[in-house]
């Protein structure tokens, strides 16, 4: 019960914080039919700025990090990503009225990672004074890419079993490359590389970092608007996708929290790191994932996986997930 009470308090206090408040405000705007629109060019630029900020921060810190420390968390991230896909295929895919390709693609998207959820969680932890290794952001692709690959492989196997003629062979290498080249992952890696090998402290401190929270507030608004606007797409797909999208982020986050806790015991992975790992597990990819899946599993209905993820999964991961893992972190680690 205490957990619930703690969660309620944390949730209420997060509600006041810009990240969550702007997300909900965006949903309200769209629900009320506002014509307010953030231009696409601005949206893409904001995502770039956030990922650069995260990447630069991580890169500058990795310089001094012990690479050994990163190994186990990276492995945990990959495992979580894959388990989420397997869960999607066997749990969601087993439900009545759910097409198997749609289930696998949805599992893939929820296994993959959303940069905005990660950014929101980083801001919340900073404000709460919970420390984490800056390189935790670098775990993103370690969860993202395996999840997408596994989903695509599973869909290929499934089609082959169905005797589909379509069965073009899955080339894992090409999916890795495609993921790394996506706008989101390459912005993150760009920041990482620049943080690692150049001296971007100046621009980081006077440009990328001070704009971070403000730009994030706008991104949250966009996510809220998008979430509401896409709710209608879910009407066209089986109701189970709604149920999945409500529950899965929390299950995935708890799973990752548990695994992260083990890594904490083993290597001293920070409490903040464990919480962030839970958040990226709970999140579902909104930038790089959808086009990759669309191209590689064309028979899956994009309304099923994008609707589940954008309309419900992401808001739940941010609005419920972040306060939940923060509360858990407080209880478990006393942070």
């Amino acid at each position, binding site marked *: 019960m205490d957990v619930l009470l703690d969660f309620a308090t944390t949730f209420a206090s997060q509600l006041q914080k810009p990240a969550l408040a702007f997300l909900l405000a965006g949903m309200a705007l769209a629900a009320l039919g506002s014509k307010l*629109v*953030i*231009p*696409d060019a*601005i*949206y*893409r630029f904001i995502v770039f700025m956030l990922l650069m900020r995260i990447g630069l921060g991580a890169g500058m810190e990795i310089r001094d990090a012990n690479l050994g420390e990163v190994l186990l968390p990276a492995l945990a991230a990959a495992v979580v990503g894959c388990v989420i896909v397997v869960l999607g295929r066997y749990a969601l895919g087993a439900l009545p009225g759910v097409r198997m390709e749609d289930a696998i693609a949805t599992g893939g998207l929820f296994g993959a990672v959303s940069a905005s959820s990660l950014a929101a969680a980083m801001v919340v932890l900073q404000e709460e004074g919970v420390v984490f290794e800056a390189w935790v952001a670098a775990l993103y692709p370690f969860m993202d890419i395996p999840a997408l690959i596994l989903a695509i492989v599973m869909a290929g196997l499934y089609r082959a079993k169905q005797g589909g003629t379509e069965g073009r062979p899955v080339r894992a290498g090409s999916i890795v490359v495609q993921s790394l080249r996506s706008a989101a992952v390459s912005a993150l890696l760009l920041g990482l590389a620049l943080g690692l090998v150049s001296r971007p402290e100046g621009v980081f401190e006077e440009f990328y970092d001070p704009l971070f929270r403000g730009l994030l507030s706008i991104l949250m608004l*966009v*996510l809220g*608007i*998008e979430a509401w606007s896409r709710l209608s*797409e879910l009407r*066209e797909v089986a109701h189970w996708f709604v149920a999945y999208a409500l529950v899965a982020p929390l299950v995935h986050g708890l799973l990752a929290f548990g695994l992260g806790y083990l890594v904490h015991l083993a290597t001293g992975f920070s409490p903040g790191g464990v919480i962030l790992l839970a958040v990226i597990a709970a999140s579902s990819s*909104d*930038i790089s994932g*959808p*086009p990759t899946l*669309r*191209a590689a599993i*064309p*028979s899956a209905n*994009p*309304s099923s996986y*994008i609707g589940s993820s*954008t309309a419900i999964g992401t808001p739940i991961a941010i609005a419920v997930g972040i306060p939940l893992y923060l509360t858990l972190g407080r209880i478990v680690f006393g942070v």
Partner: protein
Amino acid sequence: MSTTSKATKLSIVTEKLNEQAIERIVMEAGGKGYTVFDGSGRGSHSTKTRDRASVVGAFSLVKIEVIIADRAVANDIVDQVSAGYFGDFSGIVYLEEVEILRREKF
């Protein structure tokens, strides 16, 4: 005016995601060029947006216009695009007759 001759204009409305692949088909099948426009629309699949922030940008639409002097080449492109990109993806294709100058360019 220099004399004109008849040619076929092929218009392909497709998800942006498929833009490059279809352009490759066009050039390999013998097209001499193409012009592309951003758009949005509605059909039997869900509505596609343009301009407004769209978390899933790669799903907005493009229209690819290809003018081809040789009808057989046009037919070939239509077949290839229909086979590869209209089963599972949104899209339409249609043909029009146009008058061109400088026939050697098309």
